[in-house]
């Protein structure tokens, strides 16, 4: 499969993430490893953010576990294409289980941004939207413009899922914004904010 350049994409990842998180309400957010951590932390270091700075491929299933435990709350995954590819079977599991309150947003720069922008499969023909749709996701979307992003916001935040959107973005990374790194701190802060209980 020929490599497709992503220079045609004009959306900036950080602006996209900030636009989505503006309307999060009481949603809980689980990030994937890499730039997604910085994108989410730069919007607001909300206690209901679980920054996964490891376990590549695990973000969707961590969020799925939260979604089952918190059925009345929206759970958003903000992750990258490389991270989701590492846990691609999760889409099949989530498609079967149909959690209505789970939305997965893939910030797709078609590259492993944290390790030097090496190509991922999404720039070489692998279609994550198609895989999610074929796995039984209720709604899916490919987003390449601000207008398309705007139109999808109600589905991201409110409509029954499971939902997955791939947002094609420029390959340029934004500045690193350090999120709290200590796992015990971030996880207990998240759990207390989401459940109202201390661990």
């Amino acid at each position, binding site marked *: 499969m020929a490599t497709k350049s992503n220079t045609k994409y004009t959306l900036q990842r950080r602006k996209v993430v900030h636009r989505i998180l503006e309307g999060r309400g009481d949603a809980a957010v689980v990030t994937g490893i890499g730039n997604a951590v910085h994108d989410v932390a730069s919007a607001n270091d909300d206690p209901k953010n679980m920054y996964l700075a490891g*376990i590549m491929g695990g973000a969707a299933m961590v969020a799925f576990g939260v979604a089952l435990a918190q059925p009345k709350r929206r759970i958003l995954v903000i992750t990258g294409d490389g991270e989701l590819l590492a846990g691609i079977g999760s889409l099949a599991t989530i498609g079967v289980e149909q959690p209505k309150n789970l939305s997965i947003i893939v910030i797709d720069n078609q590259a492993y941004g944290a390790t030097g922008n090496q190509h991922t499969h999404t720039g070489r023909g692998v279609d994550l939207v198609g895989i999610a749709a074929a796995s039984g996701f209720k709604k899916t979307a490919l987003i390449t413009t601000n207008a398309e992003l705007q139109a999808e916001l109600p589905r991201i935040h409110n409509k029954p899922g499971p939902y997955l959107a791939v947002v094609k973005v420029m390959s340029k990374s934004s500045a690193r914004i350090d999120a709290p790194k200590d796992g015990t701190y971030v996880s207990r802060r998240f759990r207390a904010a989401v459940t109202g209980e201390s661990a």
Partner: protein
Amino acid sequence: MVSKKSKTWHWSQDVHQLFKKIGIKQVAYVPDGGLAKLLERCQADKSMRSVVLTTEEEGVAQMAGAWLGGQRGVLLTQSGGVGNCINMLSMMQECRIPLLSLVSMRGEWGETFPWQVPMGQSTIPALEAAKVIVHHVDQAEKVPETVQAAAKLAFDANRAVAVVISQRISGSGSKG
């Protein structure tokens, strides 16, 4: 104390009742013959959500999410799936999130199928390398009390714990 059990008794009865008693709400698994009776009981129980995984590591991540969202879960896997879980287990260690898992062994007591032996023999060292506390049990009567002890260590002391159930109990793959 090991009580006298009837001939029809199977450890899965008591373990399923224990799951109910301690409030297990999410049961994640990749199927295995050694766990089949327990899986059937859990699937039939509407008070817990049974989730079939494509690979065991999904279940480790799901269990972390369950705890983050305020529920208790259990991961059920054959020993062959333990190797798939190693990187995901770094979340339990870094975040000190509870994990209760039951691992049914292959490649161990009386195994006749050679391809099961490598992962079977690596299972306990791999779990321990990932800082999972291992409770090995090789008598059916002792499975329930072992799971009960593991659940306390997991959910009350916030530790990752695996109950490793010997092939001596299931007899899977040991009949040639």
